């Protein structure tokens, strides 16, 4: 199976280990992973600000880079959601519709498409607080949201449970947004920082050594908060744990 790998701009620039872990993990699972070299961004940041005209160029470039793939995988819930549900600043040609349909967030892809049932190379003997980003939780619905009256399910927990040594700890508000919110983090900085402080303190008080998420953007914000607060807590992307990274 051949997949196109989309690495969001901030992962490319600041957290390449997440991209590397994603690629290596998919290769371990027997896939041919191709990273189109001229990719940049999915257009989400501009679109979420209402600036459709400004999003169009990035969206068109995304389709140009990825239209030849049957599966496009990205270690970012918010990007996958944007492509599938909001990539409409450009005319909806057959290529565009195909790319939109074929884009998966990593956990979705591992759980629903590959149906991975073991990660024998992985071991992570730490207490982890799982942060389900709002994009994966309420948009892509990869786990039960606490507001909804339905039976419990969680794709990330299913996957992480297969990792030796993992211990889950639960914060008091597991589903509350951490306050990143894209440009919200800059334009509504006071509230964003307060939300981030509350989130990391909650995980810390629950005993988490690591906070793990499928969205590095949330973790980037939480890490920034934790470091300024001087909290002894670490941050890691789910791809890294599943790939067998030790810390």
């Amino acid at each position, binding site marked *: 199976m051949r997949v196109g790998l989309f690495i969001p701009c901030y992962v490319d*620039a600041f957290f390449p280990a997440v991209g590397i872990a994603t690629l290596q993990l998919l290769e371990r699972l027997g896939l041919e992973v191709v*990273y189109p070299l001229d990719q*940049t961004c999915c257009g989400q940041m501009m679109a*979420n600000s209402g600036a459709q005209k400004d999003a169009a160029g990035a969206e068109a470039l995304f389709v140009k880079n990825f239209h030849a793939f049957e599966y496009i995988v990205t270690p970012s819930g918010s990007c996958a959601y944007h492509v599938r549900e909001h990539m409409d600043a450009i005319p909806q040609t057959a290529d565009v519709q195909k790319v939109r349909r074929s884009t998966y967030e990593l956990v979705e892809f591992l759980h629903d498409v590959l149906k991975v049932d073991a990660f024998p190379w992985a071991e992570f003997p730490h207490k982890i607080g799982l942060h389900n980003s709002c994009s994966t939780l309420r948009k892509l619905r990869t786990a039960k949201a606490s*507001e909804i*009256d339905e039976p419990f399910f969680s794709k990330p927990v299913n996957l992480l449970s297969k990792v030796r040594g993992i211990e889950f700890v639960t914060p008091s*508000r597991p589903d509350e947004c951490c306050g990143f919110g894209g440009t919200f983090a800059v334009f509504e900085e006071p509230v964003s920082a307060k939300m981030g402080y509350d989130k990391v303190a909650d995980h810390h008080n629950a005993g988490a050594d690591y906070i793990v998420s499928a969205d590095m953007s949330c973790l980037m914000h939480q890490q*920034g908060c934790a*470091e300024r607060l001087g909290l002894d807590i670490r941050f890691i992307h789910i791809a890294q744990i599943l790939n067998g990274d030790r810390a």
Partner: protein
Amino acid sequence: MKRIDHAEAASGFIAAKAHQEFHDRRLWDLRLKRDREAHGIPEWEELRNLASQIKEHTLARLADYLEEFETRAKANGAHVHWARDAAEHNQIVYDILAARGAKTLVKSKSMLTEECDMRPFLERRNIAVIETDLGERIQQLDDEPPSHIVVPAVHKLRGDVSAVFARTIGAEPGNEDINYLAETQRRTTRPYFLRAEAGMTGANFAVSETGSFVVCTNEGNADLSANVPKLHIASIGIEKIIPKVEHLGVFIRLLSRSALGSPITQYTSHFRAPRLGGELHIVLVDNGRSERLGMHDFWYSLKCIRCGACMNTCPVYRRSGGLSYGATYSGPIGVIIDPTFDIRKYGNLPFASTLNGSCTDVCPVKINIHEQIYKWRQIIAERNQLPFVKKEMMRLAGKVLADPRLYRAAISATGLALEHLPRFAIYNFLNPWGRQRELPQPPQQTFRSWYLENRSRS
């Protein structure tokens, strides 16, 4: 009209640590209570679907249902008035009161009368208006609007209430006992119920089948306002209509569970006809609702039953307080309604959101709030209402991210800057991210350059 700066107001709110932390804890507690009630009813999600469908059907046939409501209400002996806008509403209410020589009006909670700014209008014409709900009374005496549609003074602590009551209604200064404060409001409000010539309520639901309307309270102040004075005036937004009495089963089961986490309010009162010897006036109000009905992406907001669950769950609302929105309606429902009143003044509000979607999940009538927030941002950008800095930032980002070479140049410049600039150059007033957070460290190499070194064949 000056644009509301939510972020700045929020900053002040967060700085008052004890107040903000109480506010957040109290409303989160209401959210948890709501969850317990919701999960206690196996048919909860089915009720939400029914409520949403009933409302969507009714709004699409609203004119017919309004006419039916009016016909029945009049046959019951009620007077029915129609107000196109806030000014007309206020004038109608004043004319009813003036014709009967009424000088004192006791009223229960009504967001519609807040929206119409009715109280100052009447007070300027020498009619005393007494808010009788405890939270609303606190806010009236403090000359502040309500901050939450269900718990109007949730942003205040007991010391604040004590100070207000000592200043205005003769409470003992420094006595912060909550029982004492509540008793003081009860004791000083009671005489108004007895001597007011008129009482006013809003309505949670108006049933077209019977021409009746329903008011839900916990204090019983709506029932006092309506059943002691001879004259009862009810202000009702046209979107409150539901077709049949049996539909109330669905809405009443959802309302208080969503708002306060209790199965029902202490008083669920149904008014169909005036008391013998009394008079009942109903004022049906448009004030922009018909306009909103025609908005393809936004008419769903008219389903709202004013439960406040979206405010309780919203992490931004809990940390900034209702007053930071500068509008009658705050929180998630506010940010999708307010731009229809004034897109310039409220153009920032849809950005006071992380688009996390929790509001949509708790809404008993399934309004797709977070999706409407997203769509509003497009309208605001199209109407050129984005602040200059953001507009330019998006234009620049759009250009760079549309071009692989520009993108790579920007990434390497950023990396170099973060690596080499001294701390004071990065963390200063120009960099909001860095006010309360550390920036990420620039790595040895980008993913792309790692890929080129380790995987790319060329």
